């Protein structure tokens, strides 16, 4: 590493002597000025009894509850200054206020020359209701998407297997609680079967889910069924995990 060069500055004796001389000369000149005496001022005339002035303002002039505003006032020729609701105050000053209701601040400035008043009003507005866009309440479609579970099937089967009963019961419960929702059950198959047979099988799967729901009290008039066979797969890979994804009764909200 290259070291930084450090410049050494030598304070030479000659330089120090010069500084001392300048300082001494300055001190002599100042002493000379102090010796010069000023003339005494004449006594001031008694002031006339001037009438007081007063002004008050608030900024901002509109707040919401919990917010504060700054009250600022100036007076002159006053000996007794007060603001209603606050009490005696300095002739001029400012103060933070945070009323919960609209308030008129009334300033009274009294002096030997009379009394002056001024006022300002601070408006307190009620907050607007929270906007809908920030936290929307969920729509039926949202609830449907969150609560209704698809039903999965075994290969070449259209009966609802044991581990899918929970989904079906949950679906029926939600749909019975939301009787205005109409929906479609799509029957899907994995792509190993033949086109025509798979469409018939998908039809049976959709019907199978429909009858499970109507059996649980869901009105059949709310339910449409359609088979897609293997025409609209959810997953395109060639393995069991993917095939299982494609063997299902899929719920679609009906707008």
């Amino acid at each position, binding site marked *: 590493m290259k070291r930084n060069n450090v410049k050494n500055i030598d304070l030479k004796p000659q330089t120090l002597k010069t500084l001392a001389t300048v300082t001494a000369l300055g001190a002599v000149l100042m002493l000379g000025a102090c010796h010069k005496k000023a003339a005494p001022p004449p006594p001031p005339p008694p002031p006339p009894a001037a009438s007081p002035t007063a002004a008050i303002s608030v900024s901002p002039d509109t707040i919401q509850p919990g917010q504060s505003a700054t009250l600022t006032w100036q007076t002159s020729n006053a000996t007794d200054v007060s603001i209603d609701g606050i009490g005696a105050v300095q002739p001029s000053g400012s103060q933070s206020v945070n009323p919960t209701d609209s308030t008129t601040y009334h300033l009274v400035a009294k002096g030997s020359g009379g009394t002056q008043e001024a006022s300002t009003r601070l408006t307190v507005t009620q907050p607007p209701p929270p906007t809908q866009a920030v936290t929307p309440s969920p729509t039926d479609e949202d609830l449907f998407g969150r609560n209704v579970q698809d039903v999965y099937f075994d290969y070449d089967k259209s009966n609802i297997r044991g581990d899918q009963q929970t989904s079906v019961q949950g679906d029926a419960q939600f749909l019975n609680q939301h009787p205005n929702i109409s929906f479609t059950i799509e029957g899907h198959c994995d792509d190993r079967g033949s086109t*025509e047979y798979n469409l018939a099988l998908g039809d049976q799967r959709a*019907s199978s889910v429909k009858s499970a729901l109507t059996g649980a009290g869901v009105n059949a008039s709310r339910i449409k069924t359609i088979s897609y066979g293997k*025409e609209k797969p959810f997953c395109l890979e060639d393995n069991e995990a993917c095939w299982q994804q494609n063997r299902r009764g899929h719920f679609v909200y009906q707008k």
Partner: protein
Amino acid sequence: MDDRHKQRQVPHFPGISAPTGARLLSALSFLILLSSVLLAPSFAQDWVRTGSGLGVEKARLAVPDFKPASADPQNAALLKTFNDTFWNDLDNSGVVELVSKSFYPLQVPGQPAEVTSNLWSAPPPNAAMLAFGNLGVAGGKVTVQGWLYDVKNTASPQILGKQYTDVPTDDATRLIAHKFADEIIFRLGGGIPGIAESKLYFVSDRSGHKEVWAMDYDGSNQHQITHQGSISLSPRISPDGSRLAFSSLTKSGWDILMFSLDLNRLISFPRFGGTNLSPAWSADGTSLAFSSSRSGDSQIYVCDASGNNLRRITAGKGPDVSPVWNRKTGAQVAFVSGSTGLPQVYTMEADGTNQQRMTDQGYAVSPGWSPNGQFLTLAWIRKYGPGEPGSSDIYLMDIASKQWVQLTHDGGRNDFPSWAPDGRHIVFQSSRSGKEEIWMMLADGTKLHQLTFTGRNTQPNWSWK
């Protein structure tokens, strides 16, 4: 899976290697041959290369390129179209053996006067038959003259002499080649009309939606028929070639739709409700069978060609789909049922009685009924189980004996076999090239070739003539 196909190949077969008697150059003998194969139970589960080349000698036909008959600038291009199409038709016909062009004499005839029979009948060509002629473009017309000679019969060699005139376009020239090829095939193929003028209807996704398309039997002239913009499947052409029934996803669900090829638009057909699939025409064109879930499970229904007089012919546990009529009698229907688990192929009378299960195991779908009424084709995954799905292959089954023979062995998923009107050819879909395409073969599994190459193409259906 492939190991299964390699288990045993039986090189000799009593029913085939023994001379079958008359050396009939006919499709009848071909079918008799197939049935003799199918009737030999001990060989039914092996890969046997059966076929018309094994026991029956096909006519050796020499087909020198037709000669140009004019100096018109269009002549060369149309002549090439003609020669390619004509050769291809005869080569795929299954009834003749084309003599390799390398054996031909240097001087080939374009007119009868230029024929020297013994140059063709003697080795190396050793031909029995000679097809020759010329093509000329003149006066805004293309004219083809063609002859078929029996070159062993020097006294009276001419079997056929034909002249065709049409507009000088590629399409018209191909049609002339098809017509003349069919004349030859008709005479050399036992009186069964050739298929060179037949059409194939199929489903293609190349427009972005699955729509019904059509093409000539050799894969040329591919064009879109329907424009539904949804999913259209299972096109089935009427026996007279005027209407196309198919299944399509409409706003109300899967409906049978009817397209008029004469009017080039949909014509009215009833909506039955439920999921309606896989229409099938009876051979007389008066009835349609299809599957419908209008009353619950998918069942087979029959209605008039107009859609009236609907009646259900199967009942009970389904699903039942993919009906097809006996093309010979019109009195039976084959179909697919999942009533016992995996889908199997059944036959029944057209009123639903006398159901017979045809397949004993696996996953069997897509039956097709041969024009002579004797055979079914089907797509079959014989060994099927979780974790070990076999391949779907095309099989041929003799209906009376339920004996079967496997026609495809070369991988991919093979499905939707459909018979040509000559009973010699089968078209089907296969994924062997990497995606689903239409393929064609002879009914013995030979002469396999691919017809479509663009998009995914499925569910071919052969016209009735």
